[in-house]
């Protein structure tokens, strides 16, 4: 690819989203494309197949595949290429499989339609691949429909589908982003196997440098549709040339120092044997007998994978989902189970910040209105006093008075999250529940938010209940850690105890599954695991 330029139709005009990028990939090599959201990495990946999503167009440059110019090729030539010599693995397998056909039928489609092999050959090869990629019951899993298998399995089935015609190039478009860390490993291992076995070239797109490092020979860093740096994967991780890359690498090592420390016995919130279920008592239980204490000025991190019940815990504490059993005690006083029965003062002292700042701010209210409402609602503060306090709040979150009349759509993701924090602060709370507050943000921005939260704790002595799936975040901010699995607390204790050996079995699995910035990490891990137990199935299932 040379000088590639692609425009996208946004906000009623064409805007350039890829600004002259050169990519070169040799046979059998793997290139990692990495960048934050909006960097244009997906668009470039998909363009390598001569394809543009609706609403995009290639405006310049050339794409040459094995001597063939793709930008000027006709549709028929491109079609002959796709699926046979270049194939694609999408982010969401659940959406990318046709719900009307069995897995195996979708597997054989490309080889049979392109005349590479006949139906029975393709089917038996498919079963071999399913087995190779560690799918359970490889003989029969192909007869299932997409909605009948789990997300991680479906993603592996898609990798198999991409390998069907032994292509020269596979494009992996964020194939593990939507998965939990423990599932991610299984899929990553499958991908690595696939690439190795076919000796194919690949483009691997991700926003996570550590993941890319596991599979790539070379890495290209992109930002705002332009290349920042390209180089050998190992060399880049050992010694990045550009500041931006260095920033991506060094993420979450910095931490604002904690000034105040919790005093023993100064307990703010106690959760006692709380159970909760959706659909009332007798419904599906999602929390069982949770007990934890939060001391003033402390941060508890609740860690777990999706479905562990960590967000439900937040809902139970706030009273959005009244617990079926147990009690929640705030400063020695038992709280009514539902938020509807709690008084204004109580509601004020317990605030919440959410994962997606986009949907946590009313798009039709200005920053002034968003921050002003809690002030007038809780403190009856109006007019000039209110305005002054809002400016003060903005300064606390490192924004200024210029933001007062802006709407959320005029703010960046990080700024929105800061406004959400300020809205919580406006109520002068004792405790803030942070539900995955950094997960939807790009790494550098998330880092800034974490530092801000720590600084605010130092200044205002608030306590945090920090819910996250990301262990790096946990390491950065927590004083205590609660590890959850399937609605139960697996382990609970001070950070340094939990995060140093001897580990609890599940905590160890979680810790080991977080990709490290070491290109050999995956190989080493799989090697030790294979030695330890002969693949008795995913460990998370054994534990339940």
């Amino acid at each position, binding site marked *: 690819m040379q000088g590639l330029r692609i425009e996208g139709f946004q906000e009623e005009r064409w805007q350039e989203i890829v600004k002259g990028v050169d990519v070169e990939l040799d046979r059998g090599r793997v290139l990692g494309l990495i960048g934050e959201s909006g960097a244009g990495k997906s668009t470039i990946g998909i363009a390598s197949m001569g394809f543009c999503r609706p609403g995009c167009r290639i405006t310049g440059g050339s794409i040459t595949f094995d001597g063939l110019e793709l930008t000027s090729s006709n549709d028929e030539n491109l079609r002959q290429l*796709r699926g046979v010599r270049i194939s694609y693995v999408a982010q969401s397998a659940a959406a*990318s499989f046709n719900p009307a056909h069995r897995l195996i039928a979708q597997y054989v489609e490309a080889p049979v339609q392109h005349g590479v092999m006949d139906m029975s050959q393709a089917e038996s090869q498919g079963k071999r691949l399913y087995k190779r990629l560690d799918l359970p019951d490889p003989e029969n899993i192909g007869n299932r429909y997409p*909605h009948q298998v789990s997300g991680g399995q479906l993603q592996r089935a898609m990798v198999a589908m991409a390998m069907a015609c032994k292509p020269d190039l596979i494009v992996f478009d964020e194939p593990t982003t939507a998965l939990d860390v423990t599932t991610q490993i299984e899929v990553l291992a499958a991908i690595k196997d696939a690439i190795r076995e076919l000796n194919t070239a690949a483009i691997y797109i991700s926003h996570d440098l550590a993941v890319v490092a596991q599979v790539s020979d070379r890495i290209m860093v992109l930002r705002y549709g332009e290349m920042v740096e390209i180089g050998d994967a190992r060399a880049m991780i050992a010694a990045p040339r550009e500041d931006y890359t260095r920033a991506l690498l060094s993420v979450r090592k910095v931490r604002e120092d904690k000034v105040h420390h919790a005093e023993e016995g100064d307990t703010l919130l106690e959760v006692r044997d709380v159970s909760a279920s959706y659909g009332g008592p007798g419904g599906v239980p999602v929390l069982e007998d949770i007990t934890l204490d939060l001391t003033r000025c402390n941060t508890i991190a609740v860690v777990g994978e999706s479905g562990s019940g960590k967000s439900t815990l937040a809902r139970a504490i706030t009273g959005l989902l009244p617990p079926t059993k147990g009690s929640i005690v705030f400063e020695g006083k038992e709280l009514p189970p539902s938020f509807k029965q709690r008084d204004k003062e109580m509601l004020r002292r317990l605030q919440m910040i959410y994962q997606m700042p986009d949907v946590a701010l009313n798009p039709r209210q200005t920053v002034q209105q968003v921050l002003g409402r809690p002030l007038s609602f809780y403190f009856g503060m109006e007019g000039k006093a209110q305005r002054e306090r809002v400016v003060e709040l903005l300064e606390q979150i490192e924004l200024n008075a210029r933001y007062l009349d802006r709407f959320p759509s005029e703010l960046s993701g990080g700024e929105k999250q800061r406004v959400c924090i300020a809205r919580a602060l406006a109520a002068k709370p004792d405790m803030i529940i942070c539900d995955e507050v950094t997960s939807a943000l790009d790494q550098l921005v998330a880092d800034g938010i974490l530092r801000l939260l720590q600084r605010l704790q130092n200044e205002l002595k608030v306590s945090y209940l920090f819910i996250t799936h990301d262990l790096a975040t946990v390491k950065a901010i927590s004083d205590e850690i609660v590890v959850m699995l399937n609605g139960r607390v697996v382990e609970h204790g001070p950070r340094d105890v939990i995060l140093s050996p001897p580990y609890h079995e599940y905590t160890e699995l979680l810790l080991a599954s977080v990709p490290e910035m070491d290109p050999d990490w995956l190989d080493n891990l799989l090697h030790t695991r294979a030695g330890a137990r002969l693949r008795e199935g995913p460990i998370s299932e054994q534990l339940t």
Partner: protein
Amino acid sequence: MDSLPVMVGKRLVFGVVTLIAISLMIAVGVELLPGDLAQAILGQSATPETVAAFRRELGLDLPWYTRYITWLGNFMTGDMGTSLANKREISELIGTRLGNTIFLAASAAIVAVPLAVFLGMMAALYRETLFDKMISMTTLSTISFPEFFVAYILIVLLSVQWSVFPSISNIAPDMPLGRKLYAVALPALTLILVVVAHMMRMTRAAIISLMMSPYIEMARLKGIKRSRIIIHHAFPNALSPVINVIVLNLAYLVVGVVVVEVVFVYPGLGQLLVDSVSKRDLPVVQASGLIFAGTYVLLNLTADVLSILANPRLRHPK
């Protein structure tokens, strides 16, 4: 999620409940009406004796629930009572007219459904082309036209300017099929134009949303031929929404037929209903209204059941 028979059963029960609820509402409505229905129908000049006699005839002297239960029981056994206007058996009045209405609606549907689905798919597949834009403009105009406007334009063109078809469609049971078809040509054409417009727009929208889905993109990236993508990947998933569109429009057809019958003085059930409403001939209104409604409910039910059956996720449960 419930199993298939349970879902179908639930919808069936809901349909029946609906019909009963509506007929009940009518019965209660008569009761709650301010003033006296008999007086209102006969007019202010009627003597108290005739009003009283009329009340007895309507059964207004009985409590409404007795009246309702008797009526419902009779209706179930096919006895719909007698018309107030001309004292004839309602079942007799309705019999041939119902047949005529079904004949008209069916002949419109046979042409309209395949035509609309075909054109709608074409418009979706050749989206944003001149063909699509023309079709979109035309259908937008057509759905903005009242049925009677379409009907009169057709009369002006095909009956007054060029005398191709009669402007009044009179059919009799003993007519041969060819003559019958000739007679209903204009009303059927009116219905076809209106229904096709609606159905096409909905089909187009359904197909477009389908063609945007990631699995269609995946199929394209697998290098599958366009024709195969449409037949193999889009069609099985389009079945459910398209069936829905078709049956919903058939239900619409059942109602649209009322206006068209009046325009063409066609001896159908719609004409009878409208006449009876203006004469306030309640028993006839109630009977023919419920027949229309029953058909409509039945068609909606069919739409639900068929689209459940056509949905692969529901057909192959976990």
